[in-house]
């Protein structure tokens, strides 16, 4: 297997990873960005971004395209829609295997894998996604004109999207696992004041049922474990986000909830490995904070490249002999 050597590899092409790439490439580090989906990360989930300084209003897709082009323009190599099949962070020379065949090496790695929507993980969910189950109200709300739908969740997104879905739906039932909401008071009040919304508390969806499309859901009342089956046209799931760090467990220190533990310079517990963006231990997750993390992690990684002990010459020479870039 051939190994392509870079100075730095960035995992994730959301705002954190693309910014890190820009700073690294501008500092003349040969930089590879690897991303398992479309470049832009969660930015492309956002129809309108109105809080990115310097730009009054822009779609997430446009902002992602600009950031990607900037990173490319400064010299980053970007590979999207790839799967990382092996990651070795130990030693001076780190290595990443992609799609089970291409191998890349670098002395420093920046982890910027961000996060994704949680799914319920109950029977029927995968099969009926797009056939009654949705994770995006703006995308799919209009398929449910005058229909009865359920919104799952009890945070700000769930309550705000439930209210917005009343524009289309005949009725919206909010199913939430606790007896109280975790949303801001104004979001709770707005939902409670809406005559089309009703609440089923301390309950969870246990199963989605339907042949071609969603027809019914089985709902469990958690304290009594009592199951009821309800006919329903659609279910929208808004139960929060989780970090994309499952594959990093055992490789870098993570918190119990899977966030990457970092220092103020965004170093992980592994020398030469930095982390940036939503996947790290931090309080506020925004594009601006991801971009700031991308900057800090890249500058810290450059400092590491300049000052850390020279790599084991044999490793680098052996790797470079195999290099095919």
């Amino acid at each position, binding site marked *: 297997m051939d190994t392509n050597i870079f100075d730095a590899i960035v995992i994730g092409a959301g705002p954190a990873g693309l910014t890190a790439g820009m700073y690294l490439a501008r500092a003349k580090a040969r930089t590879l960005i690897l991303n398992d*989906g*479309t*470049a*832009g990360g969660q930015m*492309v*989930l*956002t*129809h309108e971004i109105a809080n990115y300084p310097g730009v009054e209003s822009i*779609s*997430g*897709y*446009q902002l992602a395209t600009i950031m990607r082009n900037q990173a490319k323009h400064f010299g980053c*190599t970007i*590979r*999207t*829609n790839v*799967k990382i099949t092996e990651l070795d962070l130990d030693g001076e020379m780190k290595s990443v295997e992609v799609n089970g065949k*291409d191998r890349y090496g670098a002395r420093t790695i920046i982890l910027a894998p961000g996060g994704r929507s949680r799914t319920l993980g109950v029977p029927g969910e995968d099969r009926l*996604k*797009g*056939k*009654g*189950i*949705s*994770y*995006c109200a*703006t*995308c*799919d709300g209009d*398929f*449910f004109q005058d229909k009865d739908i359920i919104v799952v969740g009890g945070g700000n997104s769930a309550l705000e999207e439930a209210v917005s879905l009343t524009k289309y739906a005949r009725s919206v039932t909010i199913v939430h696992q606790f007896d109280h909401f975790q949303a801001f008071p104004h979001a709770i009040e707005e939902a409670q004041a809406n005559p089309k919304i009703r609440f089923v508390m301390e309950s969870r969806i246990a199963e989605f049922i339907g042949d*071609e*499309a*969603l027809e019914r859901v089985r709902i469990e009342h958690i304290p009594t474990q009592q199951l009821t089956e309800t006919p329903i046209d*659609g279910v929208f799931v808004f139960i929060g986000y989780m970090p994309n760090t499952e594959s990093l467990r055992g490789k870098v220190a993570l918190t119990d909830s899977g966030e990457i533990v970092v220092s103020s310079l965004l170093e992980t517990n592994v020398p030469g490995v930095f982390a940036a963006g939503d996947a790290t231990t931090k309080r506020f997750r925004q594009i601006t904070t991801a971009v700031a993390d991308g900057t800090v992690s890249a500058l810290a990684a450059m400092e590491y490249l300049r000052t850390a002990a020279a790599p084991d010459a044999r490793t680098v020479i052996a790797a470079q002999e195999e290099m095919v*870039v």
Partner: protein
Amino acid sequence: MLQTNLKHITTEQEFRDTLKNNEQVMVCCGRMGPMCIPVYGVMEELEGEYGNVAFRDMEFDGPIGHLIRTLPECSSFRGLPFTVYFKNGKVVKATSSIQTRDQVTGILDQHFSVKQHGHKHL
């Protein structure tokens, strides 16, 4: 107009010509939204790899969106985008909502006779 690098189908005539002139066609009918953009992105990448498949997009809310929306194969769909795979003008597969690259290539490999151009590296 969708802001993608794919060829857009915008008229009924273009739709018919695309199906007539290409044995294997994948059409993604959507909007510029979070479930659709990743599918366009996958198609843009696959254009360089699957030489004998015509990759096209179409506006879901445009004047000819109904050509996809009303296909019997899409009758149970309630999630954007609607992605339809045609072989010799006939629907061989249709999917609703976001799809990963692996899901799309799985369908192409199963339903189409694909000639891979080799991977577009770096």
